[in-house]
């Protein structure tokens, strides 16, 4: 088959188009040439088309078991079911980069199609910047990591198989969602750079950029949550967040992006914080690139670190320096022209959102420090070390709770100026209620007062109650309450939903961190263990065969208060192609608790090391993230982003 060569060829064409995209519309915009500016849209479409063709070629090579392609041979196997063969496309370094550029060109296409009502020169500049960034990634693929290289003349008859950890639904969806988020921040970045280039640093670009940023943020949230969920059930430990450098690499742009969303709101509504918002947009995308660098360069010890090829690391590092250096230089040249359009007092929504930004950025800086500190120390030759979770927990958790406190206050403040009396009037009831509710719910659950849990629950109630209070206040004076509720904007409900998600996730984190119970035990068939009203009866193991693995399947009967409740079948799998052993945990999910059973290793006489866990409210963490995602998407779908543009073009 000639398809892999076709894939390379169309990737080269996409590169050529991206170069044209980076040059022609930008040059047109700076010279006021409408014809050149108009090239932005067709070039974006072409770039997407050829990237898609290239991606389909790789997908076909996988589906067709074309093991003459090195990347296919080392990441797939003919015994794999077709859907895992397809998701194996992004199971390794080269293919996931191709997915990255596909999504990148997809975002570019989306901007090209969805920006009918934006001024021509802005569209040209945004697309041009997207083209510039794309050049870097196309070159990266073509020069250092082509997925289409062949084994010639002799090639293996069978592939080395996909890493069994990645043979899972979580992996099918986690990387695309995460990349949608990472690359989505390139759009916010492109809007910010376009605003700097055009010199029109009014609040308009903030309004154009807002829906894009919200969507990117929503995808990133979902991607991180999926990764956490995947780690929870697939790694066999029952942990949901490890402060692993690669997880941190995705959290960093998320924190910067969260700050950016809030700062964009201020810039759009009030015309202040302009230069800060531009800076945040640059940071959010730079941190996405830094994440890519950390993951791809092999400087980290992790499941995600595919390759330890120094060329690749160097390439991304250079790209990082060019992007950050170039955009900061532009920022330095242009930031002086930005003028605030209004003023605000110390007690106002602007100030509260500033507090939000400060907390998020400080948290981001702390996570960044903890993540790259070992790398810096190593690079300076001062020894090898790792920074443990206690560091992150000690610094991040108080910041998160502080943020929730500010969130409640911020919800009820008004733009520009808020009277202290007004604030007091609106906050005394939620404050008075959240205290006993938080203490009460912690007590009801555990019968004890764990300070951090009590604090987290109080603050979760605080966020929920202030949100509800604010909603009530909006319809209080309406005669028809229901119509009042319906007339609130989508972006308002999006905000409320996302804030509710924060509260829900924090409840989950607090409970699962403090009240998880875990027992590791050597169990013979017939052995039982009871805790938290559940009795686990180990009934031995049997041999089972899967499509590309063999497994020992343990049988564990679960009794609830002595009554038969569930049957759990954790497995220890041996994936034959790689000879790799994997733990497949059995999970009994529930709204308020998960039961989690995993097999350790086989011991003598049919005994097994068995790990049993009771994980309260663990699902709430991901439920919270889902609410945040929904909130972000709902806010971005607000018709006002489209309406206003229409009226603007009408008056223009």
């Amino acid at each position, binding site marked *: 088959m000639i398809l892999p060569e076709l894939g390379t060829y169309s990737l080269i064409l996409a590169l050529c188009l991206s170069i044209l995209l980076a040059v022609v519309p930008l040059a047109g915009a700076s010279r006021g040439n409408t014809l050149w500016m108009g090239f932005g849209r067709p070039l974006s479409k072409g770039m997407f088309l050829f990237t898609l063709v290239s991606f389909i070629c790789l997908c076909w090579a996988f589906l067709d078991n074309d093991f003459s392609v090195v990347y296919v041979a080392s990441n797939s196997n003919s015994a794999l079911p077709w859907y895992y063969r397809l998701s194996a496309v992004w199971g390794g370094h080269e293919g996931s980069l191709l997915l990255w550029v596909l999504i990148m060109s997809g975002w570019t296409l989306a901007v090209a199609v969805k920006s009918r009502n934006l001024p021509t020169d802005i569209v040209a500049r945004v697309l041009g910047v997207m083209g510039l960034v794309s050049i870097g990634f196309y070159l990266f693929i073509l020069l250092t990591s082509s997925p289409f290289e062949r084994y010639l003349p002799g090639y293996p008859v069978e592939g080395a198989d996909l*890493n069994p*950890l990645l043979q899972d639904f979580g992996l099918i969806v986690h990387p695309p969602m995460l990349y949608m988020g990472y690359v989505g921040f390139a759009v916010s970045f492109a809007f910010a750079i376009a605003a700097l280039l055009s010199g029109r640093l009014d609040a308009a670009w903030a309004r154009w950029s807002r829906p894009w940023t919200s969507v990117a943020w929503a995808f990133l949230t979902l991607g991180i949550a999926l990764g956490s969920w995947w780690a929870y059930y697939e*790694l*066999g430990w029952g942990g949901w967040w490890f402060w692993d450098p690669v997880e941190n690499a995705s959290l960093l742009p998320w924190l910067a992006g969260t700050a950016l969303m809030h700062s964009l709101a201020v810039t759009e509504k009030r015309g202040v914080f302009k230069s800060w918002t531009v800076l945040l947009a640059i940071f959010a995308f730079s941190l996405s690139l830094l994440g890519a660098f950390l993951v791809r360069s*092999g400087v980290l*010890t*992790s*499941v995600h*670190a595919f*390759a*330890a090829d120094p060329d690749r690391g160097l390439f991304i590092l250079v790209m990082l320096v060019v992007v950050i250096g170039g955009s900061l230089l532009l920022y330095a040249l242009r930031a002086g022209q930005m003028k605030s359009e209004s003023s605000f007092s110390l007690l106002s929504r602007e100030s509260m959102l500033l507090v939000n930004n400060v907390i998020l950025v*400080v948290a981001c800086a*702390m996570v960044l*420090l*903890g993540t790259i*500190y*070992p790398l810096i120390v190593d690079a300076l030759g001062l*020894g*090898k*070390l*790792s*920074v*443990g979770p*206690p*560091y992150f927990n*000690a*610094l991040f958790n108080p910041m998160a709770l502080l943020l929730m406190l500010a969130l409640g206050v911020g919800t009820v403040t008004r733009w520009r100026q808020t009277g202290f009396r007004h604030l007091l009037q609106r906050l005394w009831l939620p404050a008075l209620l959240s205290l006993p509710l938080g203490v009460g719910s912690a007590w009801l659950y555990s019968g004890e007062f764990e300070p951090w849990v009590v604090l987290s629950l109080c603050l979760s109630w605080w966020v929920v109650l202030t949100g509800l209070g604010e909603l009530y206040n909006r319809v209080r004076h309406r005669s028809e309450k229901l119509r009042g509720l319906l007339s609130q904007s989508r972006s308002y409900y999006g905000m409320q939903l996302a804030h509710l998600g924060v509260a829900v996730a924090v409840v989950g984190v607090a409970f699962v961190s403090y009240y998880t119970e875990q027992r*590791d*035990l*050597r169990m013979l068939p017939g052995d039982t263990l009871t805790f938290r009203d559940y009795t686990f009866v180990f009934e031995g193991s049997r041999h089972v065969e899967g499509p590309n693995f063999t497994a020992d399947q343990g049988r564990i009967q679960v009794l609830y208060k002595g009554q038969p409740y569930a049957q759990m079948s954790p497995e*220890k799998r041996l994936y034959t192609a*790689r*000879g*790799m*052993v*994997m*733990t497949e945990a059995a999970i009994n999910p529930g709204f308020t608790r998960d039961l989690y059973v*995993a097999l*350790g*290793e086989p*011991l*003598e006489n049919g005994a097994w*090391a068995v*790990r049993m866990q009771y994980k309260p409210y663990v699902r709430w963490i991901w439920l919270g993230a889902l609410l945040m995602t929904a909130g972000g998407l709902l806010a971005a779908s607000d018709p006002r982003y489209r309406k206003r543009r229409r009226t603007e073009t009408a008056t223009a």
Partner: protein
Amino acid sequence: MTPKRKQRLMIVIFILAGVSVAVGLTLFALNQNINLFYSPTQIASGEAPQNTRIRAGGMVVDGSIKRDPDSLFVQFDITDYDKTVTVEYVGILPDLFREGQGIVAQGSLNERGVLNAAEVLAKHDENYMPPEVADALAKAGKMPMPSGQEFNK
């Protein structure tokens, strides 16, 4: 100094104080929570501190794994092909833990020079060798075949 300048100066001093307190606390927290890596040779020569949380890594010595028949206690040796260190651990070992595999153990050394591990890490790829281990082996000139490049592929 005009009152306005005085006010600005106060703000600047206030911010500087705040930032330095934050940086100080962060560095303090960082220093409390870093785990230094030591190779078996470094541990044997007494370079590693006792009763402090450290990381140690090497290859699991063939035939050195001893299990307690009634509990999850396990004992094994790790080596950089120069010196070996005994590790004791209670709990479930990771899937990829086996003889000849490169692992990293996190724990503290006791007076007998035995590492009481709180955590044993073996990563999720059979070709994978923790970079620290690969480094320590390369330094001792004992990189096993296939050569280091073949690992971490």
